[in-house]
């Protein structure tokens, strides 16, 4: 399982990459492996809109199940990965780069503190697979 150390993670399996005050968000390698083949990605958040922490911003559907992606931080949506709905398989193939989903301008830096670091997330995933 791939858990890059430069990222932060939510317990609901989103990753967050913070650059300045811009958070890029996607779902983890663990999440994509649990979902299996992703067949559909719908980004419901709209650029310019304000999203609250824990609100649904993306819905992913695999051959097994549908899952919601929640905003790990509150803030204004700066960009969404428009192409992802045409190439949902990227969530499986490249979850941390090509399959980024949304960029949010972080409103409250404290939101980041509640997230796990790579080691914490890795052991959290480990726990759940038992």
């Amino acid at each position: 399982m791939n858990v890059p150390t430069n990222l932060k993670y939510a317990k609901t399996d989103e990753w967050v990459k913070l650059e300045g005050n811009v958070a890029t968000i996607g779902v983890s390698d663990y999440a994509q492996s649990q979902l299996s083949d992703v067949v559909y990605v719908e980004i419901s958040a709209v650029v310019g809109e304000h999203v609250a922490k824990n609100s649904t911003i993306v819905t992913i559907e695999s051959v097994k199940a549908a899952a919601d992606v929640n905003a790990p931080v509150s803030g204004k949506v700066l960009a969404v990965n428009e192409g992802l709905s045409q190439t949902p398989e990227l969530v499986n193939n490249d979850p941390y780069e090509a399959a980024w989903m949304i960029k949010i301008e972080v409103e409250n830096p404290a939101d980041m503190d509640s997230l796990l670091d790579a080691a914490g997330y890795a052991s959290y995933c480990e726990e759940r697979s038992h």
Partner: protein
Amino acid sequence: MFIPHTDAERKEMLQTIGIERIEDLFADVPAAFRFPELNIPPALTEMEALQDVQGLADANESARELACFLGAGAYNHYSPAAVDFLISRSEFSTAYTPYQPEVSQGTLQAIFEFQSLICGLTGMDASNASHYDGATATAEAGILAYHYFREKRSKFVLSHAVHPDYRGVLKTYMCGYEGVEVVGDEAELDPFSGPEHITSLIDKNTALVVVQYPDFLGRIYDYTPVAKAAHDNGALFCMVVNPTALGLLKPPSEFGADIVVGEGQPLGIPLSFGGPYLGFFATRKEFVRKIAGRLVGETVDSQGRRGYVLTLTAREQHIRRDKATSNICTNQGLIALAATIYLSLLGKQGLRQVAELCYQKAHYAADQISQVPGFKVCSSAPFFHEFVICCDQPVAEINEHLLEHNILGGLDLGAIYPSLKNHLLMAVTEMNSREQIDTLCEVLKEITHV
């Protein structure tokens, strides 16, 4: 009888919860109420019971014995004998999509054919595998629109000329959603007003506009301006249609409909006291992931052979888990199959012929009735096979008199639109012979002479 537990298992369960007999579970119910004596006659033998029930059944008068001019959403059409024969085959005798659907290729293929026929009829891209009836299918259009706009548009414009029961069910479905407002069918409205008033209600907060085609009063309108107003405001446009009428009329897709729903009963399904019926639901491809129930698709297996699969169940609980917004398990599979067989037997030309017969006979009937003193056809709008007659006396009295002559009269519109007291909604189908129509007019003449 299905008895899942053995006596030994039952005893074990009782021991586990620490009681001796099942009756002990009812200890909280006062003894007098536990097994009350029922005021019913003594038991009959099978033979006696059958005779008894047969006697009751014989007291019914059905569309088989009567000349039926009643419609208003359920229509007396001819169903070829092959429909009943084929759906009675044991392979098809279930309303359920199987839980391991791909094992049941025949069922999936039948559903696939149903979807294809509904798409052909409506001109839409995709159809699901059915709803309970026209009312629930219409209500699902509301749910789709609500979620499509992510709860950000709260106004639903519903024409007063949509079937009153469909309007009722749509409102019931929508009442659980916060802030939703359904407008357009206010009671004080003139029932004969056309779709213009609908157009004037559409704004940027409108999620969905619903009209009926032909409408509840039988009228046919060109809905292009309504569709345009809906789309100019970014709203979705839904048409509730009569499938028989589509054999003759311009398909809803050409008006720009986003969602087409309707009651499938006219497609070879018996009237049978109001059910089971069949709701159909078709959309443009864009909305396919928002529709309730399931979609069957055609594909090939690893050896290149044709096969059918459950392609899409995007809102169902085994995919959406706790966030499911649909649970259409009982998809009326058997009734959908009946409609599929009916449409296959009739073919394009056959359905057109049925529609033409309905149209011609209804217009003949309207002409004849309007020549009877005291009765007149009271809408100038073009109609398909249903029309409104205004009369000089209460509809109940007229219908009572008609029934004495073995004629089932039309619907008393006063019960639905208070301003339409003494108005009768008459339906004519291919089942009504010229003799029946002429007899109807004779009896109506008698009534005015009394």
